[in-house]
C-alpha cells in the first residue's frame, strides 16, 4: 500500500474528488492547510495591485502562506500511477501553485469496524 499526499488548490478539490471516485477511490481525507512552495508564498494567484511606491519600500503584493487543501489517500501499490496521473490531469493550470504530490509507503492498515488488516482494509 502507498499513501498519496496531494497538496492542491482548494478550488480543484471537487473535480479531483469526482475523478477519484470514477477511478474507484471514493475514500480520502481532506485537510485545509497553509503553505508555500518554491516561490516563497508570493504567488500570482494572490496577485494584488500595489502602487510602485509601496513596492519600492519592500512591501510585496504576496502572502507568506497560501491556503491549500491536502488530500490524503491510501491505495494499493498497482494503482499509484493511475491515481497520480488523474490528480495531475485535473489540477494542471500551467500556473505556479498547482501543488505537489508525495508518495510514501504504508506498512499496514486496519479497518476499525471489522478489524480487517492490510489491503482488505482499504478496498
Amino acid at each position, binding site marked *: 500500500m*502507498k499513501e498519496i*499526499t*496531494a*497538496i*492542491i488548490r482548494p478550488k480543484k478539490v471537487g473535480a479531483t474528488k469526482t475523478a477519484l471516485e470514477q477511478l474507484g477511490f471514493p475514500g480520502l481525507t481532506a*485537510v485545509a*492547510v*497553509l*503553505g*508555500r*512552495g*518554491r*516561490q*516563497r*508564498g508570493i504567488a500570482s494567484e494572490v496577485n494584488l495591485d500595489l502602487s510602485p511606491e509601496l513596492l519600492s519600500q519592500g512591501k510585496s503584493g504576496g502572502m*507568506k*502562506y497560501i491556503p*491549500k487543501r*491536502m488530500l490524503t489517500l491510501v491505495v494499493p501499490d498497482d494503482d499509484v500511477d493511475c491515481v*497520480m496521473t488523474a*490528480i*495531475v490531469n485535473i*489540477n*494542471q*493550470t*500551467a*500556473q*505556479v*501553485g*498547482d*501543488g*505537489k*504530490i*508525495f*508518495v*510514501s*509507503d504504508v506498512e499496514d492498515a486496519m479497518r476499525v469496524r471489522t478489524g480487517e488488516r492490510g489491503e482488505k482494509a482499504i478496498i
Partner: protein
Amino acid sequence: MKMIRAIVRPEAADVVAEGLAEAGFFSMTKIPVFGRGKQKGIMVGSVHYDELAKTLLMIVVEDRDQEAVLKLITSKAYTGNFGDGKIFVTSVEKALTVRTGASGL
C-alpha cells in the same frame, strides 16, 4: 526524500518557518492541530486541558538535508519546557509537481 513532520508550539511555527527559509528550505505546509504528549495534556490549577493547540509543519527534503533541517527545527522551537513538540521523519518514494508533471522536489 524524507518527509519531516514537526509538531511545535503555535508561537514557534513562524520562527521555525523563517529559519528554514533563511537556510534555503522555502517550501513547507502548516497545519493547525490539537494533541497531547507524554504529560497527558496540562493541568492549570484544578482545570485539566486534555488537548493542546499545536502547529504541524510538514517539509519534504532530500535525504542529505534531513539532519540540517532537524537541527534547525530543534534549535528554533526549543524552550526547554514540556510541550516543545516532536518531530517525525518518514521516507517519501516519489514527489510530483502538478503543474509540470515532473518528478522530484
